[in-house]
């Protein structure tokens, strides 16, 4: 994956570049809004990581400019402003996701991988398959090895989101935001309990578990037998 990091803080940019490289991605970097805009216009990137406050042209300005030029590269906004209102402003400007500083790198990585996947054709498919687990989005039916699994509506949406991002790490915040539409942080790790419920329904009687916990990051659904 080719990532453009537009960030004015040298150290943060160097850290991101290194960490992205370790995760197997190619990262390029621009130190101000104008340079970032020029790079994003001329090269094809899979994802942009844009700091909200930048010299010359601020982050939202960069994204707005790109969107008016029909450049739809997914963009993640990084900001120290974390209120819901700021988030809404960022998304209105054309950003695709919003992450508040300080953040964990695992969170950032999970989010940009999810963003890059959004442009893939799987997004619109009506059937998700992971190993012998099948989710049909039209009939709202879930089967594992041909056996029907009964899920509550919310559990279905949780599984749907996980399977849409099969093979990728999905963080707890991503689940809260996308499955529950809550952009705040509950004190208790409520997501863990929901995941363990879901796990007991889809993995309990099978030798080969599909729903895995990724330590320090979140969850992933994948067929580890292959």
């Amino acid at each position: 994956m080719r990532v453009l990091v537009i960030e004015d803080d040298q150290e943060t940019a160097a850290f991101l570049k290194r960490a992205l490289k370790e995760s197997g991605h190619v990262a390029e970097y621009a130190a101000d809004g104008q340079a970032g805009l020029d790079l994003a216009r001329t090269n094809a990137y899979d994802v942009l990581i844009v700091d909200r406050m930048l010299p010359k042209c601020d982050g939202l300005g960069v994204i707005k400019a790109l969107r008016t030029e029909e450049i739809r590269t997914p963009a993640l906004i990084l900001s120290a402003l974390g209120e819901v209102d700021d988030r809404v402003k960022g998304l209105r400007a054309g950003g695709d996701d919003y992450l508040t500083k300080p953040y964990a790198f695992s969170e950032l990585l999970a989010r940009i991988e999810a963003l890059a996947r959004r442009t893939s054709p799987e997004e619109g498919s009506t059937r998700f398959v992971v190993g012998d687990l099948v989710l049909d989005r039209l009939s709202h039916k879930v089967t594992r090895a041909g056996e029907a699994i009964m899920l509550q509506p919310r559990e279905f949406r949780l599984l749907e989101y996980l399977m849409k991002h099969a093979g990728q790490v999905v963080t707890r915040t991503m689940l809260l935001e996308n499955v529950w539409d809550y952009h705040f942080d509950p004190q208790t790790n409520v997501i863990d309990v929901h995941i363990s419920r879901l796990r007991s329904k889809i993995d309990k009687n099978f030798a080969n578990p599909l729903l895995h916990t990724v330590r320090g990051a979140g969850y992933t659904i994948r067929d580890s037998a292959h």
Partner: protein
Amino acid sequence: MTALTKLFRTTTFRLSLTYLALFSAAAIVAIFYIYWNTTVLLSRQLNQTIDAELKGLAEQYRGGGLDQLVRIVAERSQTPGNSLYLVADKEGTQLAGNLSAVSPQLWDSLGPVEFVYSRPAPGGVERRLAFANVFRLPGGYRLIVGRDIEDRRELSRLIRTTMLWGLGVMAIVGIGGGYWVSRRLLARIDNLSATTRTIMEGDLAGRLPVSGSGDELDRLAQSLNLMLARIEQLMAGLREVSDNIAHDLKTPLNRLRNRVEEALREPYDEAANRETLERTIEEADGLIKTFNALLSIARLEAGAGGENREKLDLAALVSDVAELYEPVAEERGIALKAEASTPIVIHGDRQLLGQAITNLIDNALKYGAPTAEGGNGWAPEVGVRAETHDGVAEIIVTDRGPGVPAAERERVLARFVRLEASRSEPGSGLGLSLVAAVARLHGGSLRLEDNEPGLRVVLTLPMEGDVLVNGTVPEPPTGAELRPT
């Protein structure tokens, strides 16, 4: 600027001057109009009377000749009054009447004329104004009938002087009154300015004087005082936040620093270092959470945030959050009962209200279980209800835990306050403060009550319905909803 120029510059003084000028102009016009009309009317009446008398005398002349005319005129001249008569031959010699010498201007005039005549008076002769008409008789004889109008002239002069005096007095009273009112007002304004200056210099507790008369200055001072109270409250909040940061954020930071320092001091051990680093990240995350919560509360209390208000179903939101917590409750062996089936439409920020309800349920689950030692015989149960009472929406969260003593109920809403009994559970002590801040931002309130036994938390929110919020008019229901689809 001298006191006098300052006074002349006041709005009141300028207003009084303007009113004075306008009023004087209006008075002059009115008086002049009345005066002029009266004069014209009187002259016309006089003219008619004289004409009638002339005609009457001319009849006498035609009937009885000059002799009879002379006789009647002589007779009428004897009657005291202001009537003037003269019958004279063509040389101007008086045959009868009380007018003697007559000016040629009157003698030759063809119509009514004003003239001055002399008449004997105590101590000499006085010249008086008169008005007369001439009737020419055959043979050069003249009959003159007139009226003394000196009194009328006197009256006119009197009216004119009165008018001038009146205007003068009006100007003096007007300017003086303006001066007095302005001075009084200026004194009050100066007083207000002085108070404002002391407040600006740092005396935030200072308030503007209110005279108690309820006039516009009082109302202004009252509004400004409310504003000052709000500013003072915000400043106090800010100070409190910095105190809180100093105390409750520095302590964990110090702990974190100690741990790293200790790890550096000890001989290198891969596994131990790894654990230290992991715990450091955990602690840093905890700090970030606390910091975020603190910032959110500060922002909400400053009245910021909540720009994303929309029409939402509070009951649906309550059941939604209850559903999120249902597995957690089950895991803890607590029955979580949600009763929120009837839709309650309010105008609010979904995220903020969601966070508030989350905090309330989270608190009830954490601290609301009957404790082992203080067991009250009740099964652990948390109830969540959304109801409406008299136009307000209420979210009620109840538990069967140890509750909060009545004396502590106000205090637990403050930042970082945690009761001794709750110290065993993780938490920052900011949960209820945030709920209270969200309630206030929505124009609602938060109160704690006794659930007999347990705690009952009531979050009250106004049902704004179609009231304007943040300057946006809620969308009217569209017709599309009514059409069958």
